[in-house]
């Protein structure tokens, strides 16, 4: 029991008195709402007290930072010892444009890089593919070949700066380019650090960057985990992501449950397929969460995530190394909480969301820019977003002590409740035969669709409020400068690609592609073949086309 019996008795008496007074008060004046709930529609009590967390076990459930179950953080000194990485997601136009933005961000005090690719790159198409028309450089940087990639990392100290790449189906090809670029610069693979998102399960569930069916997609991911474990030990070969699940309209509990169950699916595949020991690769698994607008729900979610993962890794997968028990995660503030209307209000939303991520113990953070509803961020907007993190880190004092909200009746009760509800989902998915099977049934997709639909109705009926959307609406339009990607970007990129196709050694290209195809057919690890291919200027789509040919293409099943 978490509290002494006498204290609980005392609390019970005093609570009774308070409840009587509340009852009298309500007769005079009703509360502002009949029902109070989080943005995920989790009902919240009027008050939390000792009785709400009385069943907790201090050692098993709370403990200390750096101690199981890591509720209070992985590191013994929390953010006092090391701040989170300020990692702004950026990329637009050509590799050269993005390289300039990166240098500007590093100069402004950013401590890690994070790459946004354009839609053709994300989907495994070169800029000159008919499907890529009109999309080049719009949502991120266009990368077709190693030549583009070398321009992207021009002047970046790859042995000092870690780089995250948000890339999924073509992750093997893009990571191969990073590895090849490092080798060309004379930096050994053992010295480079970073992350590839490389989480396909959440693509089927939420983000829909699709290429091959679920099973071969998971195989390619296990290839990267194996290659990283053996050759690129400082690389996080997967960033198991809840961010997109949440953006697609899930609740916080669904984000928590589906993300962690995805993680378990990857762990199980690597154990079975590659025969690695859990402690060889688990320490490099990383996570990525959304920080939505409901402050305490987000903090509880992140604290619960650490505790669930620690338990799963120790008890379910028998990991022995404590680093395997740690859940390390990046956080991005919620794009879907931002509004196109009155865009300056987004600065405030992002600041509170960032604060929740910090109090939730994140290791890395991207803060959205105020204009991100409309377009890729302008220099002006991205600067405010980065400085939002700097203000939180260096002015507010919230990092003075570790996990300051621990012991809060509300936060601990909410953390427990979210953990419990997440385990319910995890067990349901276990019963379906795992996440791939659940996805094939459409289970997580439809759970999210239901939540998104409900939320939209709550917005339309103003049961949930978004300022400037359904309350305090003004006709006045706040003009903000929008970053425009000119059409010349596409023309120039296609010209570059054509020139490269003419000058490269076409025999070597063919040989590399044949070798890769054979590796796919023989279930060998594709990574060495990808690295060889990109060095010979094989394009990203050419690699992906091999996967499409061998593994088949997956179409969005269009469920709603």
């Amino acid at each position, binding site marked *: 029991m978490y509290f002494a019996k006498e204290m609980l008795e005392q609390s019970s008496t005093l609570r009774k008195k308070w409840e009587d007074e509340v009852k009298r008060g309500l007769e005079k004046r009703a509360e502002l709402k009949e029902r109070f709930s989080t943005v995920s529609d989790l009902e919240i009590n009027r008050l939390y007290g000792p009785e709400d967390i009385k069943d907790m076990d201090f050692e098993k459930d709370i403990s200390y930072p750096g101690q199981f179950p890591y509720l209070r953080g992985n590191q013994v000194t929390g953010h006092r010892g090391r701040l989170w990485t300020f990692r702004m997601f950026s990329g637009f136009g050509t590799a050269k444009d993005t390289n300039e933005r990166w240098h500007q961000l590093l100069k402004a005090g950013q401590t890690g890089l994070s790459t946004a690719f354009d839609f053709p790159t994300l989907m495994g198409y070169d800029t000159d593919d008919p499907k890529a028309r009109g999309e080049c450089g719009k949502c991120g940087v266009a990368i077709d070949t190693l030549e583009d990639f070398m321009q992207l990392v021009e002047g970046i100290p790859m042995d000092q700066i870690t780089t995250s790449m948000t890339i999924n189906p073509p992750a093997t090809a893009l990571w191969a380019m990073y590895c090849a670029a490092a080798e060309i610069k004379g930096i050994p693979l053992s010295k480079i650090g970073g992350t590839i998102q490389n989480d396909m399960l959440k693509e089927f569930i939420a983000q829909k960057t699709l290429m091959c069916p679920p099973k071969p997609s998971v195989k390619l991911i296990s290839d990267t985990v194996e290659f990283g474990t053996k050759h690129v030990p400082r690389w996080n070969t997967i960033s198991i992501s809840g961010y997109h699940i949440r953006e697609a309209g899930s609740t916080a509990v669904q984000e928590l449950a589906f993300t962690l169950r995805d993680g378990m699916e990857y762990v199980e595949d690597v154990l079975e397929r590659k025969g690695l020991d859990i402690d060889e690769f688990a320490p490099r698994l990383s996570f990525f969460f959304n920080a939505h607008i409901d402050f305490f729900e987000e903090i509880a979610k992140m604290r619960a995530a650490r505790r669930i993962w620690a338990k799963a890794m120790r008890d379910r997968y028998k990991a022995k190394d404590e680093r395997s028990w740690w859940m390390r995660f990046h956080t991005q503030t919620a794009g879907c909480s931002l509004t196109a209307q009155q865009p300056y209000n987004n600065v405030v939303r992002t600041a509170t969301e960032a604060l929740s991520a910090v109090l939730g113990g994140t290791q890395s953070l991207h803060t959205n820019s105020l204009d991100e509803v409309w377009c890729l961020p302008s220099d002006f907007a991205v600067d405010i977003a980065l400085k939002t993190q700097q203000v939180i880190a260096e002015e507010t004092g919230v990092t003075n002590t570790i996990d300051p909200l621990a012991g809060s009746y509300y936060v601990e009760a909410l953390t427990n409740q979210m953990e419990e509800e997440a385990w319910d989902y995890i067990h349901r998915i276990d019963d379906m035969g795992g996440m791939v099977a659940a996805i094939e049934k459409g289970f997580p997709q439809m759970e999210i669709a239901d939540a*998104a639909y409900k939320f939209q109705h709550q917005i339309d009926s103003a049961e949930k409020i978004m300022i400037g959307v359904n309350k305090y609406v003004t006709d006045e339009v706040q003009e903000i400068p929008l970053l425009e990607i000119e059409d010349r970007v596409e023309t120039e990129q296609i010209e570059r690609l054509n020139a490269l196709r003419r000058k490269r050694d076409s025999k070597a290209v063919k040989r590399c592609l044949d070798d890769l195809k054979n590796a796919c057919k023989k279930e060998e690890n594709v990574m060495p073949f990808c690295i060889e291919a990109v060095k010979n200027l094989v394009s990203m789509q050419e690699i992906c086309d091999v996967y499409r040919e061998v593994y088949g293409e997956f*179409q969005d099943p269009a469920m709603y």
Partner: protein
Amino acid sequence: MAERKLRIMVAKPGLDGHDRGARILARCFRDAGYEVIYTGCHQTPEQVAAAAIQEDVDCVGLSCLSGAHRFLFPAVVELLKEQGADDITVIGGGIIPAADIQFLYDAGLKGVFTPGITLEDIIKWINENISLKG
């Protein structure tokens, strides 16, 4: 004879996977009593036009949040026109900057919907502005 229901296709042209809005709309149209066809993500304009003709819809609702609407939306209108299907009304929505709205109307879209509109208002607009094909 009972009047037939409005047939509407919700389509996601281009490589954009932001389908939260499209899927909510598909469900909302179904609840409003329309016959709904949802294409899913990653359709080329050619695929969208072909599907609209094959499904004999009254209206195509295009959704795009990637910034490629200036290319994709007019392409669908043109392809329908080329194939003699300009009696299919094309509407669209997503993250459309104010400066592009007139451009899309000029390109032949009959309605352009931007953030902040309610599901109810969209249904009302459709009921008032889209008639069943002859």
